[in-house]
């Protein structure tokens, strides 16, 4: 018999095998939900898929009486704007600081300890400070994401720059590169590819900070909505919203992966991707 480690699923069966756990979870939910609804048709804890679909389509198509706009899109745009802004600022800071701390030993000696310490501060713990400093507007929420994500990106990019073979920078110098040219032509392009990878990893925590900030102080946003309807035990809103957030996160992740794969084929060949 072949060893277990040598069995690889074929393309078709890999899809099937991947779907099985989803189907199982769905079945368990349906069974539990049916049981509860049979006892009490007004049960709010495990709403039926039909109820959730109704509520969700209502949120997605009908304008709210209070604001006159459609809640789902309002929430989505507000959240994505904060997330996008936070991620973009973090990525820019991460790339620039990571480039200089990774490429210039003098800058690294100065900044590295500070970045390490800052990255160890739990961002949620300083959320009150942000609210006090920036008020409860957009700025505090974006700042929370930046404070949570940027130090991680800086450290990751700096480490990656340090792991690149010294030979590359030496070679660049023998080709006449100045410090600036070595940084921009050798390090920067290679860090950019890594940046997409680490941003994908950081997106999870970015969502966490976003939803936490929205839950505490906001007038709109996906996190705000979930925590708003929690008071009425509206699981028929919360569950579809969670699924929607998951879908958004998934799409963003795939888009970044695709951009990286298209633009930097050499990076993926080097990293030995087996996908």
């Amino acid at each position: 018999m072949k060893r277990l480690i040598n069995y690889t699923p074929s393309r078709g069966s890999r899809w099937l095998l991947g779907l099985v756990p989803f189907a199982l979870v769905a079945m368990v939910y349906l069974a539990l939900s049916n049981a509860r609804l049979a006892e009490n048709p007004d049960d709010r804890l495990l709403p039926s898929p039909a109820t959730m679909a109704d509520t969700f389509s209502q949120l997605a198509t009908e304008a709210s009486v209070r604001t006159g706009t459609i809640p789902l899109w309002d929430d989505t745009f507000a959240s994505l704007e904060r997330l996008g802004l936070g991620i973009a600022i973090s990525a820019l800071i991460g790339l620039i600081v990571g480039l200089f701390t990774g490429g210039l030993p003098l800058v690294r000696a100065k900044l590295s300890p500070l970045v390490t310490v800052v990255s160890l501060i739990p961002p949620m713990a300083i959320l009150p400070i942000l609210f006090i400093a920036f008020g409860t507007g957009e700025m505090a929420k974006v700042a929370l994401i930046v404070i949570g994500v940027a130090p991680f990106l800086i450290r990751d990019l700096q480490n990656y720059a340090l792991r690149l073979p010294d030979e590359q920078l030496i070679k660049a110098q023998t080709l006449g590169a100045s410090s600036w040219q070595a940084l921009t032509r050798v390090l920067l392009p290679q860090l950019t590819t890594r940046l997409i990878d680490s941003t994908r990893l950081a997106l999870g925590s970015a969502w966490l900070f976003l939803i936490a900030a929205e839950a505490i102080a906001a007038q709109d946003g996906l996190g705000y909505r979930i925590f708003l309807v929690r008071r009425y035990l509206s699981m028929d809103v919360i569950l579809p919203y969670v699924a929607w957030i998951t879908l958004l996160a998934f799409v963003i992740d795939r888009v970044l992966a695709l951009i990286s794969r298209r633009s930097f084929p050499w990076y993926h060949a080097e990293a030995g991707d087996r996908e």
Partner: protein
Amino acid sequence: MSHPKNLLEARRVEKRYGNQVVLERIDFRVEAGEFITLVGASGCGKTTFLKLLLGTERISRGELTLDGRPLPDEPGPDRGVVFQKYSVFPHLTVLGNVMMAEELAGSRWLGKLFGSARRRAAEAATARIEEVGLTHALHKYPHELSGGMQQRLAIAQALMMQPRILLLDEPFGALDPGIRQDMHVLITRLWREQQLTIFMITHDVKEAFALGTRLWVFDKIRHDPQAPEAYGATITYDLAIGENRRPPEDLARTVDAMSERRTQTHQETPL
């Protein structure tokens, strides 16, 4: 261009890390156009020596001059280099790698050329790439190339700056014997055509004789059993290689025995 007679000169050069002496009593004169092959047991300071020439390591004592002036203590365009690995930029195509030197020279801030300047650089680079036989791979990335092709690329790239000295650190060490043969033909031709001065480290004595005009053997001759780090390696043989290009039997044996002795007793000093 007329080169001065002595391109490189070393007087009592010594290199130490802390208390550990790696190289000592290195004296030589090298004229432009020489092809010097460096052999010796692993860990006896050949690579350190190359790093001194490259400028990534600084000498601890003595004098090392290029054209009569002290060798700069950082890498520069007058000294090209090809390492055993990682010599090319993974994020650039073959063309991009070879164009790099000209792009850096032509554009101080962006390090990139556009328009007609770019076309001229690309033409020059393409000619270079043709010389090393990589025309068919112009737009490929290094990861798509075999080991031999990557080293050809590294050589083409290093020669774009027209360096005075070309430093090769076991450039063919990881290649198959057949491909190695091709590379020998290539490097010999480029050395003749471009009147380069080459320093090449190799483990293969036959290769050293086949390519070089001059052979240096690095070895530790002084040993102090109480303080193994007190003495370093030096150039024990400095041999002009004649036309017949065959290693004298006794030397080949000496070098082989030397390498074996080192491997057996594990006296290698990690460099």
